[in-house]
Every structure is written in C-alpha cells, then in structure tokens.
C-alpha cells in the first residue's frame, strides 16, 4: 500500500507519479504518529486518490464521523470521488470484528481500498496480544477476500492508522512489534519545527522489503489546509533513522 501513499505525498511535487505505475501486489501499510499528526487527513487523501482511479469503492472504517473533511490540496474534492468513499463507524471492538468477519456477506462491488482510522482505540478495549493479532490478521484476511473478489489487477489495499504513545511504554512497544509483523510497510509522522501559524510534520515512508525509503514535509496551515513537499535533504541527516529505531523494529 506504500504506493498509494507515495502518490498522495507526491502531489505537491512537480514529478508526477508516472514512472511508478507498477500495478503489483502491495504490502498492507501502518500509518503511525502522535496525536494530531495528520493521520486522518492522510488516510482521507489516500481514499480520495484511490476513489479517482476508476476502480471499486473505498471502505473507510473509523470509530466516529470525521469532524470536518480534511482540506487536501491537489486532491479534487469531486462529488463523484466522495460518493465512492463509504464510511462505517463500528462503535466497539466487537462491532469492528463483526464487520470484518462478515465482510464476505456484503454484496456489490468489492472495495479497492480498506482504511481503518484509530486502531489504538479498538486495541485499548482488548489489550491482549492475541486479540491485537487477531484484529490485525482479520484486517489482512478481509482485504485478501476483497482482492479475491476484485479478481485480476491490483486487488484491495489496506492502510491502518495507529496513534503512537510516549516512548518507554513497554506494553505498547510489544503491541507495535506485533502489528509490524502483519504490516511490513510503515509510514511515520513526526513533529517538525513549526513555522508561523502552521503545524509541520515529517513523513517517513518505509515500504517494507527492498523498496526505497522516502521522506516528505507535511504542513497544516491554520485553516486546516494540508500541503506536502519532498523533504529537502536526504543525505547525511542523522535524525533520519529516528523513526525506525524508536519503533522497535524486529
């Protein structure tokens, strides 16, 4: 799923997504960041991006309705795209599991992208490692079933957003290590020095496997508008590895 996010993050840059149109199977992606780091806005941008591809609908799972639609530059907020995004609001872990377990009973075209925002809220209800593993495995299994229904082509992608806690909490570190088994691709959002009247973040995408790592600067203006630019310097920056080391990668 790294490719969808890469396209989302590449909106701001002049280089189009052109050369990376390899429609091959993609790993499920975990989107990680602290509170207010723009995870929901990025998920929504990924939903809009996929909704514009002329494939199946996008299934967006979140505990509660979005307060406002994130303002995303570059993504056309066309009504046709918005109509393809189906929001569902499972109020509890039990309801989320029920939705995933019965996903094959729903009729109609299979989704081309499955999104879940706020995984931490569902995990907090049932913090055991086996429960977390089952939820992660079921998300993968549901996306795999949608892919099966889509048939040939790219299948159904999966992006899950998880709010990371303060460092040093061993319980969540264990949970994160477990989730990383199921989500080989990760994108970290970390706070960066803010400019006047805006909120800046560094987005670091690790697509898993042998794929190239990439970084962007994500800026939210006071009116909520999001802009993305490629991270200026890629070489010789010592803080580059911060994301992966604090994540306790296996």
């Amino acid at each position, binding site marked *: *799923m790294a490719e969808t996010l890469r396209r989302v993050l590449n909106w701001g840059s002049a280089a189009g997504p052109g050369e990376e149109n390899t429609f091959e*199977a*993609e*790993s*499920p992606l975990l989107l990680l960041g602290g509170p207010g780091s723009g995870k929901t806005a990025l998920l929504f941008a990924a939903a809009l991006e996929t909704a514009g591809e002329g494939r199946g609908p996008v299934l967006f799972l979140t505990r509660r309705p979005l307060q406002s639609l994130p303002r995303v530059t570059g993504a056309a907020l066309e009504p046709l795209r918005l109509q393809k995004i189906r929001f569902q609001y499972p109020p509890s872990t*039990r309801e989320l*599991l*029920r939705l*995933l*377990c*019965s*996903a*094959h*009973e729903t009729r109609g075209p299979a989704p081309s992208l499955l999104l879940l925002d706020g995984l931490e809220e569902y995990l907090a209800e049932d913090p055991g*490692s*086996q*429960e977390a*593993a*089952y939820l992660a*495995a*079921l998300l*993968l*299994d549901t*996306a*795999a*079933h949608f*892919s*099966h*229904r889509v048939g040939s082509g790219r*299948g*159904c*992608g*999966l992006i899950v957003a998880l709010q990371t806690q303060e460092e040093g909490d061993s319980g969540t570190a*264990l949970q994160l290590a*477990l989730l990383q*088994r*199921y989500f*080989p691709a990760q994108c970290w959002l970390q706070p960066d020095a803010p400019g006047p009247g805006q909120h800046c973040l560094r987005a670091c995408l690790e697509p*898993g496997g042998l794929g190239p790592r990439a970084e962007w600067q994500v800026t939210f203006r006071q009116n909520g508008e999001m802009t993305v630019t490629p991270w200026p310097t890629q070489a010789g920056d010592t803080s580059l590895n911060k994301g992966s080391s604090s994540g306790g990668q*296996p």
Partner: protein
Amino acid sequence: MAVAARALTLPAVVEELLSEMAEAARDGAPIPDEHLLSLKFVFGSSAVQALDLVDRQSITLLSSPSGRRVYQVLGSSGRTYVCLASCHYCSCPAFAFSVLRKSDSLLCKHLLAVYLSQVMRTCQQLSVSDKQLTDVLLMEKTQEAS
C-alpha cells in the same frame, strides 16, 4: 498484497522446503525422508506433531460461496482452532505465546499442519454458507473472551 503475508513472516528456507515437498508429493508419492528430517531440524517436536495432525486428517478447509476460506484444525486436546488462509494466524495459545509474544518459534503445530496438508493435498474440504463462515470467524473471538 495480503496474500504475500505468509512469505513475509516465514523465512525463505521454510518456503523453499515446503515447495520442494510439494514438488516431491505432486504425484501422490510419499514425502522423501530427507525432507522430513529437514522439517524436524527446523521445527523440532512440532514437526512430528504437525505430521500426526495431517495423518489423522485433522485439517479442514471451510469455504463459502463468497470465496472466503478459513482452516479449522482439530487439536490433539479435542479443541478446534482457526487458522486464517490469507496470513499467518492461529487461535491456539502456543501461537499467542511462543510465536507472537516470545518470538522463539516460527509456527505452531496447527499452522505447520495446514501448510503440510496443502503440500500433501490431504486437506478435508467442507462447503459452508456465508453466514456459517462468519460464525466460525466470530466464534473464535467469543471463545477467547470466555
């Protein structure tokens, strides 16, 4: 995408061993001893237990009209465990403890039995309704909670 999950969690050497076994067993021939020895070397006592589960035909592949599938393995204790077909997950306590928590095993005997039964094509097949498949996946959850 998600289909690749098994490859991401199983080391290449295991994948290779399984595909060699599949090749050897393709014409219904017994698995060569050298493969069984390698299996024992990699998985220890789980290998014997998993082969025992395969011999007793304890593995059932449930499939519903929707195309969704899930494995059920009847454990030696008489309890049934669910193994997902698309990624690396078994509902047994050993998977939760040794594989997920401690990371000192690659697999539990049930998952290994599923992979071996795929290789040897000795898996029982059972068609169920979409609703029944939902219940199998959900019941797994309620059992854990109780």
